[in-house]
């Protein structure tokens, strides 16, 4: 592969990556700008961070988002993992259909999922708020975990479980002592991905959040529609920092279970 090696591919990769990072850099830089303007640099300042930290509605929205992400990820992790394990073990005719339908939430456009949830929940007369948000988010978190765990199970040696059973372990015991530890890395990375998707979601949340409850992305979205303020720059930078921390944690975890 040594022949005709040019610098061109490297330059191309660099340029596209620069395109990807360009807007992020500007958001971060202008969050420290000492002026309301987002065109001219007026010196370093932390005033927008001050304004941000005094805005309680943003903190409330952040709290809602985190709570929502954690609950729906946990629920999805339990349902998805059990489902993936079960689907691998049993053979029944509707297996393919079940798999297809359970990955539907990430196959159809988000807008449709959001709109059908809105219509469906109002028919069930569920009050719009945290409960509806959790159900909706769990629905699109499950596929990520299901697919990750399924991929992991496919590469697993069934002899390990059989050995445990032969040695007298009950199926429940086998699940907790053998299967679960083996699929745990997949559960974790699926859950991380799902959590990120939950924290990122605007389209579905905006349909089911109800009039009084804001998640952080919904809050940012509505503020952005009213115009550009440097507080959003600051908020975005803070969110960026948080994402980096979560991402770093995930990297560490992936390393911990370095089977990938």
């Amino acid at each position, binding site marked *: 592969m040594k022949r005709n090696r040019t610098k061109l591919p490297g330059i191309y990769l660099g340029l596209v990556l620069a395109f990807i990072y360009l807007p992020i850099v500007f958001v971060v830089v202008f969050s420290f700008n000492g002026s309301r303007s987002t065109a001219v640099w007026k010196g370093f300042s932390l005033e927008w961070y001050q304004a941000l930290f005094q805005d309680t509605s943003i903190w409330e929205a952040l709290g809602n988002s985190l709570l929502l992400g954690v609950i729906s990820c946990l629920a999805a992790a339990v349902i998805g993992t*059990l489902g993936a394990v079960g689907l691998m073990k049993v053979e*029944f005719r509707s297996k393919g259909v079940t798999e297809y339908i359970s990955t539907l939430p990430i196959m159809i456009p988000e807008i449709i999922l959001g709109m059908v949830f809105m219509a469906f929940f109002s028919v069930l007369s569920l009050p719009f708020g945290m409960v509806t948000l959790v159900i909706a988010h769990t629905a699109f978190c499950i596929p990520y975990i299901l697919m990750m765990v399924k991929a992991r199970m496919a590469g697993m040696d069934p002899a390990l479980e059989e050995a445990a059973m032969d040695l007298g372990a009950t199926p429940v015991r086998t699940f907790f002592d053998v299967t679960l530890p083996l699929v745990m890395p997949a559960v974790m990375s699926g859950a991380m991905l799902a959590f990120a998707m939950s924290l990122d979601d605007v389209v579905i949340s*905006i349909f089911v959040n109800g009039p009084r409850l804001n998640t952080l992305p919904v809050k940012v979205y509505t503020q952005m*529609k009213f115009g550009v303020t440097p507080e959003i720059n600051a908020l975005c930078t803070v969110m960026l920092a948080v994402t980096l921390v979560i991402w770093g944690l995930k990297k560490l975890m992936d390393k911990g279970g370095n089977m990938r």
Partner: protein
Amino acid sequence: MEQRPECTGGSGGQEMRKKKDLWSFTVVPLYVFTIVFVVGPLLYMIALSFATNREGYGVDWIFTLENYKRILDPVYLDTFLQSLKLAFTSTLSIMLLGYPFGYFMAKLSSRWKSRVMMFLMLPFWINSLIRLYGWIVILQTKGVLNGSLMRLGIIDEPLKMLYSYPSVLLGMIYTLLPFMILSVYSSAEKLDWSLVEAARDLGADAVQAFCSVTLKMTLPGLLSGMILTFIPSMGLFFIADILGGNKIVLVGSLIQDQMTRGSDWPFAAALAVVLTLLTTLIIYLYRRITHTSELEGLY
């Protein structure tokens, strides 16, 4: 729908059978959740699309095809066509930008591969709104780009770049590009490069070798990338909203509008059914062409 594995009455007490039955219970939560909260709402959407909208608020359960007929109304048909046009344009641009990226990336040394992957995935984890917001900062009338261009003396008057079709297109490309790159990469990475060399040794020139081997082998990734960009680009109404002002109306924006302000749910449902059918058709075609059941590089 509920199809449990039959417990064949044979009281032989076959141990394997019993164990399998127990395992099948672990699927139950997934089953129940999926039926109640995925199949249920989708069926309801279909039913709703044939119902009659009541003046004001609510629905009358009288069968009608009026909602579907309304889609053919030039105003709404235009929206559909505009959405499709945008989706095609953005998918094509993303393909042209993303394919070389995924291809070159797969040719890197494994050390650089993981570095580039890291740089690629990092923004992926950042809230997509934030990344779009960065473009507002750059593109707005008093924004970075106009400021720089004016200071360089290239333009005298600030250009109106934000709230236009190109800026929506830019937003789509920007948001969806990583999906294409990852799909192409995951299939280019599996490519056996010795096949390309074999083609070259047998006398094919670089272009021929690329077309007959590389492109063919990476087609599943390319197609799956196209699906992963085409489908969302019809529904991502917030991109059109933020970067397009209210000038660009997509099917997604239309559905959202009908659900909230317009409060014509049956019509919104009909739009959604058509969009879902379109999506399903695209995925079905993908499966027929590539003979695979899962999208390449989806996770």
